[in-house]
């Protein structure tokens, strides 16, 4: 690798430091870990969505060759471990007792000498069930005649919580008196993050040291350590959580799953390392899903298209347990970002949550908490308004954008947007795609009876949770951290409380540190994921790493620099006040030729520290962000529809993103490609479906459809840069914008193509059959 000049490290397209191991097959993921005397665990799961457990017979399984132990809910109950707390303040069964509440719920764990024997043993466990009627529809769950699902709770209802924000009366009044009100029901279907690596762990309890080491697929290793300590009763210092390379997370690896707890229990019981790696079916049917929001939006507006008020209602289906990973104060996450990029004078939003006999969740899938639902809803409904008023959707958006002069902007639902220039991103997107020309082409095609659509989305995100006076998970404040150790030779070890899963932290955080310390990226090594060595942090999700840990990196480095300046003054034989940091060096003011580098200082810190100054050169910084960051952008999608089959072809997709200061444009672009592809999959094919009996119909990759290279459109990306005023380097976070912003662009394009038929909305996934049935119902035979 060639050395990169210190002064221009941020903003450089630098090849990733993590790649050499991955491209040579030398990454180390959880399933790659093999320990001496390790045994395997498999889980017995319920075929029923709702059933009373009548009996579990383990004798046959225990008699199978190689089977060492079978653990049931009754066993865990004795240890007080049959239930565990969720991050949302609910509790979840580790192994079922009494009854099962969703299909594929964990019922027993079988530990055996080999993987094969564990699966054979699991098959041999006999479980007797008495099936109960399953509740699949969240609306039906609230009806009085619906069976009570959670008999363990004091509240004898399937309703979990109600949340609201904004001004109910003012919003109602505005809606009553408005020229125009549009109302749209919008379902954001249940989806699953489905990282390519499933979840798993190796639990290694050492009877000699009394310590438990848990290698686990974790986006938040420290939080997992603390919670595991709370659940298991093991003292926290006797637990070491290591999250090795993680094969994608997207929110799926934020939670603690019953399988981890069972593996820990098995290791404690057997005194041997226990490996449990779930199958894809287990992953899709039992781990954190996302969305499942059933929403209604109403926008009140004047004839001129100026919006007056927004009212939103949503029903959130959480499945059998409220296992969200939301900040405590926000049961509906940051759903109140639903006013989007628009200057609503008033707004009101409310969400009710409900239990059903489905897998528990839900997590933020490649987005900040419930932001995708909110963004999709407002961007979809703005198009409904445009259609109602006969105003071009681009023009309607422009008329209602929060203007640059209003930043920092206080939204009607209470957020303070840090910075934004929405029209600039819109303009760039329209210009790049050739909007005017496309609209002319569309008109021509419509005359010929062809179906072409153009869809826009001008989204605003809210990421980087978050300010500690507002944000905590299970009581732990949502700061993040960086610890820097500058070695005598000027090389740096940088450790973080975050845990990347492909985001490129080993490169981008090295860039931030190198920039701040005047070093080369090659001089910095980034380490994450080991709770014994990394400073405490809340982990990587919700696009929070750059806004929090990235900020901590810059500020820890500046802390190093403060001490380094004292050493530099000592080396330059002048007063501290005469030394300045410029061009990546310490220089004597007025005599820039007299300078020392960070490397010189590092050596001196260990070999020649100034008298009275502590030797060494290290710093740690725990960063409490003063505000969230608000990335934004405009996406434009162009589609053509086959009238025969209902097939939708994405012809063009232009994405203009603004994530503030860009640390590494190559990585930013990669994040955008990936997020757009997920948004595409969600818009057109991904859905976790259940039948009326609560069978999960999407429990593997033949039915949970992920786009391949063939379906995936070619992405065109561009950007504007509006730095965050409160972030030390102006960065906002980007991993999730494309997934948040794109679903509306896709659906808006399809609806636009069909709008001559009077179509105003189609729920995702937009399958060929949905389009086909609209076409046929309008007599278009193909």
């Amino acid at each position, binding site marked *: 690798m060639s050395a990169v000049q210190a002064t221009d490290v941020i903003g450089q397209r630098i090849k990733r430091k993590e790649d050499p191991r991955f491209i040579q097959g030398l990454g180390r993921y959880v399933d790659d870990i093999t320990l001496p005397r390790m045994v395997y665990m498999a889980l017995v799961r319920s075929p029923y969505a709702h059933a009373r457990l009548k009996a579990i017979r383990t004798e046959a399984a225990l008699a199978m060759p190689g089977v060492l132990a079978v653990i049931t809910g009754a066993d865990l109950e004795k240890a007080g471990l049959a239930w565990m707390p969720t991050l949302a303040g609910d509790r979840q069964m580790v192994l079922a007792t009494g009854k099962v509440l969703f299909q594929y719920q964990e019922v027993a764990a079988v530990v055996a000498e080999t993987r094969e024997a564990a*699966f*054979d043993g699991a098959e041999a466990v006999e479980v007797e069930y008495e099936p109960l009627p399953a509740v699949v529809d969240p609306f039906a769950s609230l009806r009085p005649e619906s069976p009570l699902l959670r008999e363990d709770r004091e509240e004898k209802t399937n309703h979990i919580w109600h949340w609201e924000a904004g001004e109910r009366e003012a919003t109602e009044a505005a809606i009553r008196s408005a020229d125009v009100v549009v109302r749209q029901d919008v379902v954001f279907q249940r989806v699953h993050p489905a990282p390519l690596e499933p979840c798993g762990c190796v639990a290694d309890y050492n009877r000699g040291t009394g310590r438990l080491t848990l290698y686990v697929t974790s986006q938040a290793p420290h939080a997992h350590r603390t919670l595991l300590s709370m659940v298991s009763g093991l003292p926290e210092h006797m637990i070491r959580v290591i999250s090795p390379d993680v094969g994608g997370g997207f929110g799926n690896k934020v939670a603690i799953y019953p399988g981890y707890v069972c593996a820990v229990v098995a290791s404690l019981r057997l005194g041997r390392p226990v490996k449990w790696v779930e199958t894809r079916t287990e992953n899709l049917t039992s781990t954190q899903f996302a969305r499942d929001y059933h929403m209604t939006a109403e926008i009140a507006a004047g004839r001129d298209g100026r919006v007056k008020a927004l009212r939103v209602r949503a029903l959130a289906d959480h499945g059998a347990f409220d296992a969200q990973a939301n900040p405590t104060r926000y049961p509906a996450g940051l759903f109140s970002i639903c006013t989007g990029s628009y200057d609503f004078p008033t707004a009101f939003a409310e969400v009710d949550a409900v239990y059903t006999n489905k897998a528990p969740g839900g997590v933020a899938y490649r987005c900040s908490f419930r932001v995708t639902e909110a963004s999709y809803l407002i961007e979809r409904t703005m198009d409904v308004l445009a259609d109602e008023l006969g105003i071009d959707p681009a023009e309607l958006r422009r008329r209602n954008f929060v203007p640059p002069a209003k930043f920092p902007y206080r939204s009607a639902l209470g957020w303070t947007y840090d910075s934004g220039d929405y029209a600039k991103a819109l303009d760039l997107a329209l210009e790049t795609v050739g909007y005017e020309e496309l609209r002319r082409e569309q008109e021509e095609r419509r005359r010929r009876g062809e179906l072409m659509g153009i869809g826009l989305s001008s989204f605003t995100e809210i990421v980087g949770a978050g300010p500690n006076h507002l944000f905590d998970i299970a009581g732990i404040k949502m700061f993040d951290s960086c610890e820097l150790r500058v070695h005598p030779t000027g090389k740096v070890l940088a450790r973080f409380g975050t845990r990347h899963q492909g985001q490129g932290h080993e490169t981008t955080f090295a860039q931030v540190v190198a920039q701040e310390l005047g070093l080369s990226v090659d001089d910095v090594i980034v380490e994450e994921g080991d709770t014994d060595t990394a400073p405490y942090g809340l982990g990587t999700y919700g696009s929070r790493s750059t806004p929090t840990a990235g900020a901590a990196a810059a500020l820890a480095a500046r802390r190093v620099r403060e001490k380094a300046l004292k050493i530099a003054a000592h080396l330059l034989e002048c007063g501290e006040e005469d030394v300045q940091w410029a061009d990546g060096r310490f220089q004597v003011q007025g005599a820039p030729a007299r300078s020392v580098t960070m490397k010189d200082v590092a050596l001196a810190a260990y070999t020649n520290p100034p008298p009275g100054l502590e030797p060494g050169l290290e710093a740690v910084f725990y960063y409490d962000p003063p505000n969230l960051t608000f990335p934004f952008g405009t996406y434009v999608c162009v589609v053509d529809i086959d009238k025969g089959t209902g097939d939708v072809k994405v012809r063009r997709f232009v994405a203009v993103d603004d994530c503030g200061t860009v640390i590494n444009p190559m990585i930013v672009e990669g994040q955008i490609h990936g997020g757009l592809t997920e948004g595409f999959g969600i818009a057109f094919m991904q859905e976790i*479906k259940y039948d009326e009996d609560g069978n999960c119909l999407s429990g593997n990759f033949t039915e949970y459809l992920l786009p*391949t290279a063939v379906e995936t459109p070619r992405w065109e990306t561009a950007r504007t840069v509006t730095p965050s005023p409160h972030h030390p380097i102006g960065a906002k976070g980007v991993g999730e914008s494309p997934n948040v912003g794109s679903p509306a662009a896709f659906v808006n394009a399809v609806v636009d193509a069909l709008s001559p038929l009077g179509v105003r909305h189609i729920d995702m996934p937009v399958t*060929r059959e949905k389009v086909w049935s609209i076409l046929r119902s309008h007599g278009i035979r193909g």
Partner: protein
Amino acid sequence: MIPAAFDYAAPGSLPEAVELLRRHGEEAKVIAGGQSLIPAMRFRLARPGVLVDIQRIPGLDFLAEEEGVLRIGPLVRHAEMEASPLIRDRYPLLAETASVVADPLVRNLGTVAGSLVHADPAGDWGAALLAARARVVLTGPGGERELALEDFLVDTFTTAISPDEILTEIRVPAPAPRSGGAYLKIERKVGDFATAAVGVQVAFDADGRCTAAGVGLCAVGPTSLRAREAEAFLAGKRFEPEVLERAGELAAAASSPVADTRGSEAYKRDMVRILTVRALARAAERALAA
């Protein structure tokens, strides 16, 4: 997931393989490419006691046209059908089918014969080879027997093969002059089974009138289906738009799809219509361009 335990045998000759099947009866299962069988075994839905691997038997991968018949050996993989210049030049219906079976990696192992024996109504080869009027040769303890493919395909996942027989050859009549074929498939994404698919093989006389038509339907019935009324209707006709439209309607009427996650009955039936019209047009273009 992990399959249940089984015994494995890799015979070196066909008689040896047949003898193994005879000895183990229902317990035994032939494995060639294994791309349908192994997934079913991993879910423990299939749990044969003995796998008889025929991949080590020499001489089963022939693919050649001889005396007016294309002979496809039991170890010919989808990928070989896709890449073969013979198939590409002479049998566009089969080349096109090969290119949409599962995904490219599965095609490197899965075999055409295995797919027919598996008899999944959503398998592509059944429909294509019905349109091509293929026959199959079964080899058992008593020797060989030959069946028309439509007599071989009995029901969903069920064929006329006995537990002690192996499908040892697929025979496809070589195309007549002025003939062409096409295979069109609607799938939700690459690698998916068909929502619906249609294979057609047509021949014309010098006046552009259809002399023979084969129309095979995929994933819209308990087995792969032949759209006989459409085939009969096309005979003697020029492929004018209204002729194709009518053939599409007849093919749709011949289908009996069931609703599933891929689509409703009505959608699948209408896709048969659309695909039949398009496939016939494409096949005719190929036939008449030659």
